[in-house]
């Protein structure tokens, strides 16, 4: 449906009020034991097993189920999935909706979790398999954080190909063999995502607007990472980190929004390229092309974005996710002079009306 910016933001605000973490858990839980009791018992067991502090576990669970807050730690989210007895697919959905991305099919640890969920094994069993894998590694060997830049061409397997092959793993021995086979290319970094991130970043850094052909504006000078972030990716989102005054929708949108610092970390390979950054880069570069005709615009870009996300092993666009909903609406441009990034900026302005984006003096020294 074609909605104005105000209508979209009103719609999202209503939906966010309805949607909650507790509702997500209840919708995916089909056991008879009350959820709070189950989670309390199981998470206490898991954390105790890992030597973690179990005090406050019950309080945290209460807060989650009352939507005071929700877990952000992926390990905790996996523990919740195990506790609830979810299968691999349901766990992937919970992670997609809550964390930055679904199961990471290039992270050996998460692949072990995925296998165990598939086989209905419990969390302790998963920890045992992790230990077994680590024991098979040479004592002096360290897992290299290989970036897409370092891998030979033939080893840059698409995440989706690895995931397809992983589907056929059915036994523990097959799992260990599989992980050893792909040991070199598996890592905690989305190699494919990094490659696409680099491609789009280089266009923004080099300033290839194409306008120099028309001769109306001069070619852009080379940008720094900070300039790229401020100019193209920030889109008016406030810098302020303290979010108490923000609405649920604002918090949801602002979560994982790239800053100059996080961009630097992603660019250098220190941090994983996240889904939101990849989507924002796509928007900033207009999908690396300004030329798709108006009548095909939304459908074509939607398909391209999903292809990009799929190849990176990330969740596809989900209209139930507020940020994804804004993405989808931003693709519905009104005329050929409009663009997805401008439309997104207008939506964000509506969302954060009253919370002006500004440069904190601290930014000048590099601190956020």
């Amino acid at each position: 449906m074609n909605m104005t910016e105000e209508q979209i933001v009103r719609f999202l605000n209503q939906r966010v009020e309805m949607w909650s973490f507790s509702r997500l858990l209840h919708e995916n839980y089909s056991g008879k034991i009350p959820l709070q009791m189950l989670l309390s018992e199981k998470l206490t067991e898991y954390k105790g097993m890992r030597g973690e502090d179990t005090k406050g576990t019950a309080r945290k669970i209460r807060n989650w189920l009352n939507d005071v807050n929700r877990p952000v730690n992926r390990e905790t989210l996996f523990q919740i999935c195990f506790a609830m007895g979810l299968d691999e697919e349901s766990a992937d959905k919970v992670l997609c909706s809550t964390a930055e991305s679904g199961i990471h099919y290039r992270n050996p640890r998460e692949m072990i979790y995925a296998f165990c969920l598939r086989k209905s094994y419990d969390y302790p069993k998963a920890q045992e398999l992790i230990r077994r894998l680590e024991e098979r590694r040479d004592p002096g060997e360290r897992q290299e954080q290989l970036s897409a830049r370092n891998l030979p061409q033939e080893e840059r397997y698409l995440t989706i190909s690895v995931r397809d092959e992983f589907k056929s793993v059915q036994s523990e021995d097959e799992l260990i063999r599989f992980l050893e086979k792909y040991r070199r290319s598996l890592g905690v970094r989305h190699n494919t995502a990094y490659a696409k991130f680099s491609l789009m970043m280089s266009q923004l850094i080099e300033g290839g607007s194409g306008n120099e052909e028309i001769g109306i504006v001069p070619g852009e000078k080379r940008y720094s990472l900070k300039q790229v972030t401020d100019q193209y990716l920030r889109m008016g989102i406030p810098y302020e980190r303290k979010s108490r005054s923000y609405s649920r929708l604002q918090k949801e949108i602002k979560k994982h929004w790239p800053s100059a610092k996080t961009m630097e970390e992603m660019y250098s390979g220190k941090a994983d390229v996240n889904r939101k950054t990849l989507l924002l880069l796509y928007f900033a570069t207009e999908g690396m092309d300004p030329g798709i005709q108006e009548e095909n615009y939304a459908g074509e870009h939607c398909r391209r974005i999903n292809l990009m996300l799929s190849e990176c092993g990330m969740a596809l666009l989900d209209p139930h996710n507020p940020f994804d909903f804004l993405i989808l609406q931003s693709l519905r441009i009104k005329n050929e002079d409009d663009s997805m990034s401008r439309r997104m900026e207008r939506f964000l302005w509506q969302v954060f009306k009253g919370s002006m984006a500004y440069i904190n003096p601290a930014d000048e020294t590099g601190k956020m």
Partner: protein
Amino acid sequence: MEDRLMEEYRQSLPEGFRLIGRHRIYIIDKYISAGSNSIVYQAFYQDSLMPGHRHVILIKELYPLDEMGRITRAADGSLVIDPSAEEFLRPHRESFLAGNHAHLTIAENGSGRIADNLDSFEANNTLYTVLTSRKGRVLAELLEEDITFPTVTHTVQFLKNLLLALSAFHQQKLLHLDISPDNIFVLEAEDGKLSTDIILLDFNSVYSQNSDWQYDNYYVGKAGYMAPETVLQRRGEFGPWSDIYSVCAVWYELLSGEKLPDMELVYGSELISPYSRLLLHEKERTALQVNQILKKGLEIQPKKRYQEIGEIQSDLDRLLNILSGADREPIINPRAEQDARRKKTRRAVTALACLIFLLAGTGTGILLEKMLKPEGQSMEHTELDLTQFPLETDDSVVLTEKNIRHPLENNIMTMPVQSSMSVRVNLKDYSHPRDLSEVFETYGIFTIYNGEGDKRGWQFADLTYDFFYTPDNAIHMELPLQDKNEFPLEYIGVIFANYNYTETSVVLDIKDCTLVDGEGISHEITELEGSHILYFDEENWQWNLLSEQNKNYVRDFQDIYGGKLIVDAEAGYLDPLLEVTWESDNPDVATVDEKGRIYANRQGQATITVTIEDKHTGEIRKTQMLVHVRSKLG
């Protein structure tokens, strides 16, 4: 190399092994290849009537690679499958059966582009398919060895054969879904060279759009060749267009030498550069058509792609006609038209804005002029007739502005104020002794031709010459004209360079410059013939002697196809031969240095005189030119 697979986890059947099929006994000859799902052997069976004769065949054995070593070979040749491997084996068996079913279905309906399926049976606790044997190699192996097709035409023939093979699938409502270089077998040509004939291999990913298909494949293709809908597992969107995407991905690789880039981040009408290896010497329309086919074949959205093989075959046929010259219709480039429309709109808007601005300015100017000008005076616009300025000229001393393709008209040169420009002297009918005391080391020379609108630029067939290798500083050059493109012939020329980048003065005698056209008729390019006085320094290390005189005789590349450009040139230093002086009669307007470089100081006119004295004969030649210095605004 041992003709037997001895992987860590698999052992092939040995040579001489008797494989007992349902109807005959096959003898294993040698191991051919192995994939993740099966092993292929060359084998034979004896003719029933004449047992001394053999029928050579290929046998494909289902033997999935299990790195846990749970599927082994017993002494009698049968496979031993550990119970824990049953679940692992199941999808491989399903794929093998699905592929076999598809193979038989297609073969029953007649197709020359897949190996015939002669029989399939169960033995040794596994499955076998018997195929006809053909000589050739898998495309992937050829690409790894950098063995490629020599021309675009070859790749198109290859592609058409591939599509023909695929059409057998699509006619049965089957999709291959694993088109990649690994599954394309290139047949050996009779002369042992790379042919364009192929057969398709490996149908394990076959997908049926028929409701009675009982197989469920888990594997749908290889990264880099999979259509977007297969990457996204949108089975409802699978169709013949999915295979066509993969075919175009293979074609892209053959043309560019690289795998497809991130297609969701690529858009544009030029996937293959017109300057790439295979397209460089083809017509520009070839590159346009190639890119249009690739663009449509690789569309992200299935509905925008070629919907069936007939559509792409039709465009490929047109491409072949362009390559052969039978099709000369212009190619409409929708993207260029779209960009042009956008540029036109923006230019129109900009122009309108400028016009409004100018009109406003002019209006103000007119108003001011009316206010300032006394009444009664008329201002006639007068144009200066420069030809009325008297000049003493000598036709045997021809002056040409640097990089201009014809001599000065009426010996008049116009320049904006505060600029400088060199003038080159060409002495006609100048005979002189040759100075062969030094070799013209590191001077290079070559001839060129250029097409109007040809983005490739100068064409010279890589024929450059070095005076170092000549015994007498003389060079004979013949540039063959074999260009099949259809550009108008804009100009021809001789490029002479001093790769020392030193300050020298040279006389380049072009004794002969003849353009032989396609019909063998010779046309003398007199503008370039003569003795050119050339000054080199660090900044001006190359002289381009260009002429459009060709336009008097020929029109385009077609007119000269099969002909040649012949140039005979001799080089020698200026100093032993001639004394050249330059002077200006109005230095306030224009000055000239000893190398013929004119500097425009202020608006007005100046007469420049060049005097050339032959040091051997004492003969003096002199000519004059007019320099008209105009304002920078024109």
